[in-house]
């Protein structure tokens, strides 16, 4: 039965739309449980209605919520005093925290590490690049998906609370952020390039090549400063991503035309 949630959870965002987001996928994942626990038509209808509502959480950690919801549905079908509304309350309260951590770990760190390694192969024209990328990303991702499905069904929400309060969650996030930052730093140096072609004549044969001086100060000083400046604009000035891209295009061509680069 848990395997059903695991396999069905892969499709959670398949028909993604602004009305339901992952709602239909959440319901789809729970249908085997609903059919098993609720033989009476009315009960089945209320369970389906509960889970067709709007849902969104990073999908490979969201299976915890699915497992938990399934275990609560089981309780609900067995015990009269169980408050069915608490199922959706718990779901709603877990989406935010799970997405926050899930997005950072999987989008911000794991995907970046996988992409960084694969890009090395891709730049050399090695056809293994996409395969390496998919393996590095998906093996931990699928393992997490399965592990959290089981965990959600068996241990419940209290476990997550204790994970937070004991400080283990903070520890994990910090370690992942370190890995992410080192990788992003490396990729900045690898992918962001800028070389100025400015030269000053010092009289006679001597010329002053600006790029050489910049390199003596700090290799890659312009790329790292430029990246941090973009970061500053995006985070502190809340600049729109698309606008920033447009500005970079305009300034890049402008620098080129006036002969700085």
């Amino acid at each position, binding site marked *: 039965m848990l395997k059903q949630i695991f396999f069905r*959870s892969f*499709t959670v*965002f*398949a*028909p*993604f739309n*602004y*009305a339901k987001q992952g709602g239909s996928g959440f319901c789809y994942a729970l*249908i085997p449980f609903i059919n098993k626990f609720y033989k009476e038509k009315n009960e089945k209808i209320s369970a*389906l209605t509960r889970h067709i509502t709007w849902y969104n959480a990073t999908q490979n950690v969201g299976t915890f919520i699915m497992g938990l919801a399934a275990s609560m549905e089981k309780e609900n079908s067995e015990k009269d005093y169980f408050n069915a509304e608490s199922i959706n309350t718990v779901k709603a309260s877990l989406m935010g925290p799970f997405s926050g951590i899930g997005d950072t770990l999987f989008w*911000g760190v794991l*995907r*970046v590490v996988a*992409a*960084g*390694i*694969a*890009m090395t192969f*891709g730049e050399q024209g090695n*056809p293994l*690049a996409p395969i390496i*990328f*998919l393996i590095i*990303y*998906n093996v931990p*991702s699928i393992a997490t*998906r399965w592990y959290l499905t089981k965990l959600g069904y068996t241990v419940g929400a209290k476990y997550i609370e204790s994970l937070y309060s*004991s*400080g*283990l969650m903070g*520890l*994990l996030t*910090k*370690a992942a*952020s*370190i*890995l*992410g*930052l*080192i*990788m*992003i730093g*490396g*990729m*900045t140096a*690898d992918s*962001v390039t800028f070389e100025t072609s400015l030269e000053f004549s010092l009289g006679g044969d001597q010329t002053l090549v600006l790029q050489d001086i910049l390199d003596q100060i*700090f290799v*890659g000083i312009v790329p*790292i400063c430029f990246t941090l400046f*973009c*970061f500053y*604009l995006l*985070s502190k000035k809340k600049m729109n*991503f*698309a606008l920033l*891209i447009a500005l970079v295009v305009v300034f*890049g*061509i402008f620098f080129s*035309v006036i002969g700085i680069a």
Partner: protein
Amino acid sequence: MNIVMTTLSAAFLCAIAYFICFGGNWLIGQNMADQPIVVGPFVGLLLGDLQTGLILGASLQALFIGAINVGGAVSLNPSFGTTLAVAFSILSGGGEQFALALAVPLGLLGGLLEIGVNILCAAFGPLWDKAAAEGNDKKIVGLHFGVWLLKYLLFSAVIFIAIFAGATPVTNFVNNLPDFITEGLGVVAGLLPAVGFAMLLKMVWSGKLALFYLLGFLAVAYLELPLIAVATLGLIVAFAQAMIDKDMLDIKNQANNSSIGDNDQTDEEEDFLS
């Protein structure tokens, strides 16, 4: 006639590639098949130029790395930009810089298209509610996959039309581009990944950990390590830090559990950890 046939089959192949990568990504657990590093080589392979696809895919990956749709908020569609940029680049013979500069506006257009389709598909919301109210679980499942199919067929149709209609004008455009623009695009292509990395930094940045960003940068700028070595280095540093933190945490938790008289010590350790 021959050119029309070539364009037609190229458009068809790209539509299929897009459907598999983008639609497949969302059908099978966001497996990242829609990332440029996968889409680029796939489109290249189908159009008979795997090498260009691989190299463009790697460059576009850097460009689109920050295009993350957190919580369903779409800004860019990397696979849309990649499919069209790689296809146009191969079909028109434009170079890498051309593809890189083209990919961003196309990615933005793709993002807009995605928002539009997501709004359009929201019309199916009430049908799901109705099916649930009827207790009809088969209908819920049918809609679940039906809307997926419809959605990604729609995207693929747009790709097909864009390539079929766009290949000739884009080729002419490339051939008539003034030199200063072409050179400028090279500068732009070098700078644009910075925006993507800035976007990622927004996610994982913390003032206390900023030095680790510099460490990664130094490892490549001065030590000239390949990225796979940087990833390993990062893993080791992260693991070492986690072990130190774990020890600290154990001490702290132990102190918390022991007698109340030890309060001073606990406070000290908390200060140290924070």
